[in-house]
């Protein structure tokens, strides 16, 4: 059984590594935005060397890791599964002798691994070439960062899975998806460090699962806050949201009516 999921991971990796031109095009966009975000964020250091515990080096590291993670965690969502629900192809998926959620997760892990090798690594190298980045200094911190990225993928997958499940009930669920896309940039900590916000907003944002997707791995990389606490935040949300996904999937299947056959 495990071998089957491993093969799904490999299939996900292969599927996305086929579109090289698309990968390079997306990469170019991430890099241009990386330079722009650096310029925008560095304006806060006009009068002071430190802002909310960030120095210029940590700030540009924030920008480049964030740009690198966009494609890894698909921060603005994806619609592949929802489209299968809409078209009815999900009926075929349900006939397969694998767990639907686990199979989709396996494929997503494969996709994310390819994104890590390309869309994450390259912007980070560009960042290293042009800026003074603050990266983990010890093997332990690199390990914590790796674990944090894995948890970020799990949380993002769980959110995307739940959003796509809505397609079982709503014929046109794109409105909901675009609403999610609209709030995730700021809530995840892609546009601006969450620490720059006033205290009440910081508490409110960290109470959502979104910082687990971008800000938490960044904080671990640049050594802000307790790594253990950050990993716990991510793990809690990953477990809760994956469980919620299972629950909703169970209900969704009961509402499903397959025509014909």
């Amino acid at each position, binding site marked *: 059984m495990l071998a089957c999921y491993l093969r799904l991971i490999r299939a996900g990796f292969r599927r996305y590594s086929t579109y090289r031109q*698309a990968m390079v095009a997306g990469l170019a*966009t991430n890099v241009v935005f990386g330079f722009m975000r650096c310029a925008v964020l560095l304006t806060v250091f006009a*009068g002071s060397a430190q802002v909310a515990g960030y120095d210029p080096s940590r700030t540009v590291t924030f920008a480049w890791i964030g740009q690198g993670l966009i494609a890894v965690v698909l921060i603005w969502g994806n619609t592949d599964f929802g489209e299968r629900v809409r078209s009815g192809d999900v009926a075929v998926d349900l006939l397969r002798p694998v767990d639907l959620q686990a199979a989709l997760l396996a494929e997503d892990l494969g996709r994310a691994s390819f994104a890590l090798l390309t869309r994450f690594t390259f912007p980070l190298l560009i960042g290293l070439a042009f800026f003074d980045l603050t990266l983990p200094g010890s093997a332990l911190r690199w390990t914590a960062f790796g674990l944090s990225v894995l948890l970020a993928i799990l949380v993002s997958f769980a959110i995307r899975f739940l959003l796509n499940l809505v397609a079982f009930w709503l014929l046109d669920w794109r409105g909901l998806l675009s*609403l999610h896309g609209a709030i995730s940039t700021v809530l995840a900590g892609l546009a601006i460090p969450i620490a720059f916000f006033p205290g009440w907003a910081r508490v409110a944002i960290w109470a959502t699962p979104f910082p687990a997707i971008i800000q938490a791995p960044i904080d671990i990389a640049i050594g802000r806050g307790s790594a253990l606490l950050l990993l716990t935040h991510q793990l809690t949300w990953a477990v809760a949201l994956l469980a919620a996904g299972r629950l909703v999937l169970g209900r969704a299947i009961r509402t499903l009516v397959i025509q014909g056959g």
Partner: protein
Amino acid sequence: MGEHFTVYRSLLAASVRSQLAYPASFTLQCAAQALLQLQNMVVILVLFSRVGEMGGFTRQEALLIFSLAGISFGLADMLVGSLDQLGRLVRTGTLDALLLRPLPAMTQICATDFALRRVGTVGTALAVLGYVLATSDISWTPLRVAVLLITPLTGLVLLGAVWVAASATTFWLVEGQELPNAVTYGSGLFTSYPVSIFSGWLLRLMAFVVPGAFVAYYPALAILGKPDPLGLPPVLQYSAPLVAVLAAGVAALAWRAGLRHYVGTGS
């Protein structure tokens, strides 16, 4: 020409009707666009909570640039943003069908996928502009009023030209349809900040090669009667209409070259 316009209008009407067919979804999408624009403003406000000025601009002045850029970007995305789909149209062969019809391909693509939801972006940007104008102390002259009124239009032409020219690259790089995003959505971000915060190749590329500086930055300087922190000639502050015409010309040439290069993906 008049005949084209009638067809264009009915395509547009059909597109709008189809978007309004799911009112709940459409409302959510409008709200999402408004929220996206608000979110971009929150970023600026949070930055200004940490620092007094940005690239030589106060918060009010930066918000003027942000709102002018938002109006133009929202309008451009509404009218020509669907050119993002060009790669898909080429791959699936849909473009061949469009080329057979007696109406320019670009007109058909833009009319059938007219993004009405972008009224959310434009509405939010207009509200911010209203707030800025009501709370700022600008000494109005007829010339400044004229600049204010014409800027959404010149900005629309400029960003629309960027969109068309960038999308035309898809004729050569069929799979790379995300590449234009670097300058289209990239300009969305770039133009909503004072360009004086950028420097080096990024400033040259996004402000002058891609004429982002003329969308909101120079018009805002003209409206505020403020010298250019970049120290470039003051005449640039009033050059936006001219640059817009030039940009539209370049975009038309790029699109034509792309169409001429296109031979279909075949099967």
